[in-house]
């Protein structure tokens, strides 16, 4: 029995031991009981001029495996009776002792509501919403259970300032700076480069992490690889960039929003190296796609208890290089430096990516000149990767803007930390 003693347990360990013991007696074939996922979530929303809204949601899902398919039954509630009903779909009803109330309930940190209300009132904008998000979950398998812990998050959305957003771990030492950055007004008159211009682009202040989230992170997720929908499918072992980049997906970075100690299928968090020295070497898989791709699982993540686990990235991390970002800019006769991205997508039909630049500058003769007006950049996935310059900045920075990642309509928190990188050629749309 895996029975970690967590002071922050919101599920009673003794009850979970009983539950795991009961699950051991569930059928092992036709269908085979795979796992039971139980989750408690709390969301607090604060907006200027509105009442504070709190939402507590508990639910669970039992997963069964047939020879050629999976079946999942999910339902509200984590009480003994709700859980017993869930796991009895294909078996005799489990007799479980009543689940005791949680030793620790999910609550916002003391003072959080006042902190959020002060920010909301300062903006005086009824379109600005600040959310506190936290969750605890357990994965119960036939012989063990694992608690899933992830850091509490703060999400801020404002539709007034050109629709911007922030996602960060609550308590991050730079949270105050990032909130100030959200509310910095955009430049009064920005420069718009000519459409069709092919130009070098420097991604700084963590934006390279968001770039590689789209270009590599999503495209090595097991479901896209397994059915050949990724332009990186079949490129394992290939050199994708000239830059000697090491790219890692690391859920153990608890300072970044995509952190967890155990994925939603009960596998301990481990870093996965996706690129080593610019060579593609890793994939991100859940248990199902790991079998197809023949790699280790560990990235089965659920949007919440209602949804099955699917392969999703956590926190993309690129270590520091040796180049000075200032020197990288100084070496550029003409180009663009991006300091904030507001969105990035990859078109599944053409495999072209579109990057929305929210803030940045024109570089001329090595110096920052005019601020940019919002613009879009595009290029093919593999072409952009091939055009990453070998110089890697010595300034790894987290991205706070684009962590709320949506795939197939389902959002999940993710994070990234990356140094300054330069792409030698991107097209301005």
């Amino acid at each position, binding site marked *: 029995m895996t029975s970690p003693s967590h002071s922050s347990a919101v599920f009673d360990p003794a009850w979970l031991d009983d539950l795991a013991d009961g699950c051991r007696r569930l059928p092992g074939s036709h269908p085979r009981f795979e796992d039971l996922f139980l989750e408690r979530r709390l*969301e607090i929303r604060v907006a200027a001029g509105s009442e504070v809204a709190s939402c*507590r949601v508990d639910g669970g899902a039992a997963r069964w495996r047939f020879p050629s398919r999976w079946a999942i039954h999910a339902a509200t509630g984590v009480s003994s009776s709700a859980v017993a009903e869930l796991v009895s779909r294909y078996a005799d009803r489990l007799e479980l002792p009543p689940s005791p109330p949680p030793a620790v309930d999910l609550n916002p940190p003391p003072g959080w509501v006042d902190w959020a209300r002060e920010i909301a009132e300062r903006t005086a904008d009824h379109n600005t919403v600040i959310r506190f998000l936290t969750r605890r979950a357990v994965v119960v398998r036939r012989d063990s259970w694992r608690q899933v812990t992830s850091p509490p998050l703060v999400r801020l959305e404002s539709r007034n300032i050109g629709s911007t957003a922030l996602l960060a771990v609550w308590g991050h030492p730079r949270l105050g700076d990032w909130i100030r950055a959200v509310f910095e007004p955009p430049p009064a008159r920005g420069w718009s480069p000519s459409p069709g211009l092919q130009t070098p682009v420097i991604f700084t202040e963590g934006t390279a992490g968001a770039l590689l989230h789209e270009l590599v992170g999503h495209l090595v997720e097991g479901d896209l690889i397994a059915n050949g929908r990724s332009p990186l499918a079949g490129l394992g072992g290939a050199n994708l960039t000239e830059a000697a980049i090491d790219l890692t997906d690391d859920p153990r970075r608890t300072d970044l929003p995509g952190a967890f100690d155990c994925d939603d299928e009960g596998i301990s968090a481990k870093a996965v190296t996706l690129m080593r020295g610019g060579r593609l070497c890793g994939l991100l898989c859940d248990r199902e796609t790991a079998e197809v791709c023949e790699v280790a699982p560990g990235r089965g993540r659920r949007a919440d208890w209602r949804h099955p686990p699917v392969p999703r990235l956590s926190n993309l991390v690129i270590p520091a290089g040796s180049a000075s970002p200032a020197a990288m800019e100084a070496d550029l006769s003409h180009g663009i430096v991006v300091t904030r991205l507001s*969105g990035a997508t990859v078109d599944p*039909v053409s495999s072209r990516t579109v990057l929305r630049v929210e803030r940045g500058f024109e570089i001329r003769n090595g110096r920052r000149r005019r601020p940019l007006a919002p613009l879009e950049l595009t290029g093919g996935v593999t072409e952009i990767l091939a055009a990453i310059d070998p110089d890697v900045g010595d300034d790894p920075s987290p991205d706070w803007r684009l962590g709320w990642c949506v795939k197939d309509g389902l959002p999940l928190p993710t994070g990234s930390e990356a140094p300054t990188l330069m792409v030698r050629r991107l097209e301005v*749309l």
Partner: protein
Amino acid sequence: MPSHSRPDDLPAKLSRAIEACGGRLSTGEAKRWEVFAKSSLTRETELIDGRLRRTVQIEESGVGVRIWDGARAGFAAISGLDGSAARSAVAAARAGAAPGPDPMPPQRLLGLTAIPPGPRMPPRGWAQHVTGELAIAIASMSNGSLRLGRTVVQEGHYAWQLCTADDWSADHHRTVASMLVEVLISDRPGIWREWIHIADPESFAAEAVAARIGNRALLTRHRIATDQGLHDLILHPEVSSQLLAAISPLFLACPDDRDPLPGLLGPDGLLSAYALTLVDDRSDPMAPVVGPCDGEGLPARRTLLLEEGAPRHRIANFADARRFDETPRGGAVRLSYRDRPSSGPANLRVLTDDGMAAGELLSASDRALYLLRPLATVTADLGNGTYSLIASGVWLDRQRVRGWHPVVELSGSLGTLLRRIDAVGTDLCWFQTAHGFVGASTLLVRQQPVVG
């Protein structure tokens, strides 16, 4: 095997939850309160290459409680319909109450609109059946150039009840269905993905759905061609829906000093050309969000937002309507018990009564760029009056396809774009957007700058 929740069980469960909350609220200090309870049962069936890959059955329920004690307002939502959920929801709403005016509409504004009964939940096996039919229809209409890869069919039934301290109550139940379709295109490595709203599962027509998907997906097989300059544009309904979603905040009530709408109007007071009329239609039984009342009890209605280019009414929940001096018209949206009723359109749609058939629109220009699908969310800077639309499209020369333009950006003056809408199609389709459900049709826009 145990018995599980059936659609027929839901109303009784909801009533018990409402009674449990109401009992607790009646004994407290709340001067006014409102309880919203919702329960849903959803089946999700995923098939890959015709083979059943995964089934997911979700039963979800919960309550949302709003209170006002004369000086402070609170809202809390809790999953579950049992006594402990009711107790917790009431306690949390009280604990989180903060100084503020009564956010709930007065009883005199509450009322119900008769809504025709909806379709029945499809029988088990329906998802596999329609997927099989769709696979055949897609292969047939494309002469084998398209192949159905993956489908995720969602069928669900939900029921909700809303009750206030004044013993006013409303209830509603409905079946909903939708389908995510992924199609493989021969000669191209990528996939074509489309979401289909199914208003009535019994009348699902595989051939029509196959044509809707295939007609666009096949166009991406043409050789690449690019162009720029001033050109007529034809926006497929999916692209139109994104554009309408981007401008939908214009129709929300807001303070005068932050209202971007006046700055976007032309000298004639019009936001768009005569061809465009927009409504938020909450009484259309074929739309995705249907009910007898809005999210806080005002009767469901069709609210005219833009009439032949001229702005008419704004959408607001009761609290925002009062705050921004608008007439309350039932503009609250509450899709889940988790959310308090917020201002927003439920079913923003184009009126197509005076529209043209999509085929006529496609032949209404000698040379046009037909925008097939958005590649990123369409953005509109409403303060500065600009927009940016990134899409893939095909160039049409005298109704013949000249080539596929994989990534094209349109940007510039939002007012100019809207005022050059020459005609709307009759091919209304519903789409999910970042601003809710939008029913859009093909739009013909004259002489817009095309770059890249």
